[in-house]
């Protein structure tokens, strides 16, 4: 499934996993706050442009949504794409066969 591929690709990058970690800890962050957290907590010196691109990859996979609130833009985690990620390998319950 193409959707799964986007999710696996998004999750394959350690910086993107850190972004999700931070949004899971506190949802609804500005780009500035995400950058500040990555720099201070993990000494990740990625540029704002790089983090912005990581957010785009996460958004394309449906793992992050951004909402405008007036003049502000906040980013939120969405774990829905993870729900059925491993179903295809776990579909058959051994006890039922």
């Amino acid at each position, binding site marked *: 499934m193409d959707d799964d591929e986007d999710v696996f690709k998004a999750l394959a990058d350690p910086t993107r996993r850190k972004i999700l970690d931070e949004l899971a800890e*506190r949802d609804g*962050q*500005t*780009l*500035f*706050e995400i950058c*500040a*957290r990555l720099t*201070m*907590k993990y000494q990740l010196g990625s540029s*704002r442009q790089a983090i912005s691109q990581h957010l785009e990859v996460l958004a394309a996979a449906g793992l992050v949504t951004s909402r405008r609130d007036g*003049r*502000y*833009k*906040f980013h939120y985690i969405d774990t829905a794409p993870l729900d059925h990620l491993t179903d295809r390998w776990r579909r058959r319950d051994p006890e039922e066969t």
Partner: protein
Amino acid sequence: MRITITSVLVHDQAEAERFYTEVLGFVKRHDVDMGGGARWLTVVSPDDPDGTELLLEPDGHPAAKPWKAALVEDGIPYTQFSVDDVQAEFERLRALGVRFTQEPMNMGTFSTAVLDDTCGNLIQIIQLHPPTAETV
């Protein structure tokens, strides 16, 4: 060379005067009519009345508004003030209706929060934590 003045670009000087004095708690230092509706309007900290002045500068230049809007969209505070206690200041200001785009965040050696000055800018407040056994 010394830094005596720094500026924030505000969309309305009367509104800025109210927010920076009544809400943030700064004190007006200079207020001179410059003609054309503009004022030379500066505030200082009551804790440091002879210290650096903050000029509340009209943002009428055509490049000013797009620049400010782009910073706000990404949540970038262009100006920073020091406080003794970020959490206490956050609670005081929130009670006054101030909107924060970043709630207090402890970064180890310092804490920050980011607020909207209602004049088109995000302002970061910062508290430096004294070194502890862990951070030394």
